[in-house]
């Protein structure tokens, strides 16, 4: 397979990593202007192997190992985008995106508005994010709020291999800069992926992944699976939870949440990132404003604490796992 992708005859079962790899491969094959840039993405294939084999097949000019400098990577990606390329940047871990934060916030996010639409920057910044893999410091963080607050960026996170494939394709297709957050602790989980063009969905909208009537549970990325587990447990206790996968964190598909909450009257939002100034705050504030007279209980948030991500031997306590989600659900149902 040299620079080409085969279109499968039907859906396949693959890991989330393999789906991302397939999406990058397809984008490289389809559009010669697509480039990959990052640390160790070439021969190594990235520390998580998301780019495995791509440099071999598309060459060093299209899959570029860069110097170890995140600001340099994003800054030169902006220049490449200005010159007509569509760079897809890999940041090795969530905690290492901050040296590039200035370029992302002051340049990448703003250049379209600055030029009143004359400049488009189709740059994707892929970041493996989140905890639960037993890693050392800076390797388990969830910085989505720090991007979502910044106008000009789109922020999204897939929860399944199928979404990983199609959302990454969509991110690369988009003419807006996208921060693409990959739930690293779900990298090796498998799911069905239909890569045939006919299966292509549009831009990511929220999806009801389990229907229910008693309470709405909103999540994205790595927490969607946790919330589905919680819903299964709650069902045994007679509570039907509706689980929504947001997919996009900026913008947020409030209409979908709104619709659900009007039926259930109760909402719990779960994410790994710290609760304070996190996505849950925005969702709680906006949905309460929209659905004030439909809510039978205050919106509850479950997420990380206002602490740095802890050493790995404490991460089970820190992460909002099944029990903490169920606890919030119970409290919301009791209210």
């Amino acid at each position: 397979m040299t620079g080409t992708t085969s279109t499968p005859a039907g859906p396949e079962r693959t890991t989330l990593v393999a789906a991302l790899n397939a999406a990058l491969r397809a984008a490289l094959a389809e559009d010669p202007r697509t480039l990959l840039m990052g640390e160790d993405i070439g021969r190594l294939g990235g520390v998580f192997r998301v780019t495995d084999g791509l440099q071999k097949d598309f060459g060093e000019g299209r899959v570029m190992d860069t110097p170890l400098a995140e600001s340099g990577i994003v800054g030169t990606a902006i220049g490449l985008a200005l010159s007509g390329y569509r760079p897809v940047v890999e940041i090795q871990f969530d905690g290492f995106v901050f040296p590039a934060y200035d370029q992302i916030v002051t340049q990448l996010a703003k250049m379209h508005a600055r030029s009143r639409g004359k400049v488009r920057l189709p740059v994707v910044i892929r970041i493996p994010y989140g905890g639960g893999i037993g890693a050392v410091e800076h390797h388990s963080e969830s910085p989505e709020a720090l991007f979502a607050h910044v106008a000009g960026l789109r922020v999204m996170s897939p929860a399944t291999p199928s979404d990983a494939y199609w959302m990454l394709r969509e991110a690369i297709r988009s003419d807006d800069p996208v921060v693409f957050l990959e739930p690293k602790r779900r990298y090796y989980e498998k799911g069905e992926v239909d890569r045939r063009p006919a299966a292509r969905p549009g831009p990511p909208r929220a999806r009801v992944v389990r229907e229910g009537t008693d309470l709405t549970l909103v999540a994205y990325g790595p927490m969607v699976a946790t919330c589905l587990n919680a819903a299964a447990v709650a069902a045994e206790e007679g509570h039907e939870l509706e689980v929504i996968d947001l997919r996009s964190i900026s913008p947020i598909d409030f209409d979908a949440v709104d619709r659900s909450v009007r039926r259930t009257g109760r909402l719990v939002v779960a994410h790994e990132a710290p609760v304070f100034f996190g996505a849950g705050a925005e969702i709680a504030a906006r949905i309460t404003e929209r659905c004030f007279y439909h809510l039978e209980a205050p919106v509850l948030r479950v997420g990380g604490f206002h602490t740095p991500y802890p050493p790995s031997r404490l991460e089970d306590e820190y992460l909002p796992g099944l029990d903490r989600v169920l606890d919030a659900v119970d409290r919301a149902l009791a209210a």
Partner: protein
Amino acid sequence: MTGDGVRLLAPDGTRVPHPEHSIDLSPEELRSLYRDMALARRFDAEGVTLQRQGELGLWPSLLGQEAAQVGSVRALRDDDHAFPSYREHAVALGRGMDPLALLRLFRGVDHGDWDPAEHRFHLYTLVIGSQTLHATGYALGLAKDGSESAVVAYFGDGATAQGDVSEAFNFAAVYGAPVVFFCQNNQWAISESNERQTRVPLHQRARGFGFPGVRVDGNDVLACLAVTRWALERARRGEGPTLIEAFTYRMGAHTTSDDPSRYRDAAEVESWRAKDPLLRLERLLRAEGASDDAFFAATEAAGEELAARVREGVRSMAAPGVHELFDHVYAEPHALVDEERAAFDVYRAAFVQEG
């Protein structure tokens, strides 16, 4: 290579021979360089005046840096690209930019919204040093395309302290990008002199990243042109980046908001007046009989005409419409922006009704 650097034209207007960087220009070309410098100076003065009159929010004057900017931009081919900082008004004019585009930014009508593709002159960049990486990336793109175009990145002496500029040097060196780093060392970063920014002359920085650095007399338009042309040719030949340190002086305040009397001596400014870039070219032109009083009078008149056009243009600039707030945040539809725009319209409608 210390002191004033490569020089082809002395302050007294005499030519100085140089083994590597000689240049042969016709009288017409010399006049045209003078004219560009004079127009830039007049335009710049009008910027200061318009700010004083309240027509602009701010103006960063290029006074004293005309040779560095006009000389370097003249070296560019039409298909080359310039990435400016925020003081490159003469570079803008040299690329064919509408001067009013710059003034819109400093009037606060927009953030500098020209199309970089039109004149291969990119957006003004206010976050110090950022554009050096964009220029490097652009140059990489040109190289990937197999193009023979090259890129010039403009920045100041203060900018060299920023990590981004070092990263740009390194990326350019590692990938051999066709980019010329053109540093206008005007001796000051607002109130901080060179010693606060670097321990050694700035052009030396490049060597440590593996490419040549050259100091050039930044008030000598011929030297700036010759050295930039040489560096661009290197870039085109695939020999990678070059750093040019144009040794010049910021004759005015940092911007119209600044008060340089708080931090620098009038005597220093005075000493640089003797090295004025226009004066020395005027002396050459007169000495070599390449132009006469009529030429200078005509140039001055052209300057006044430019100033009048600019003045008039600024005063009649339309204020931006309120929807500009929302219209260009994203290239593609965006639910939140749409929602906020709609709510804003409702609010304004009610407000207009009420009051």
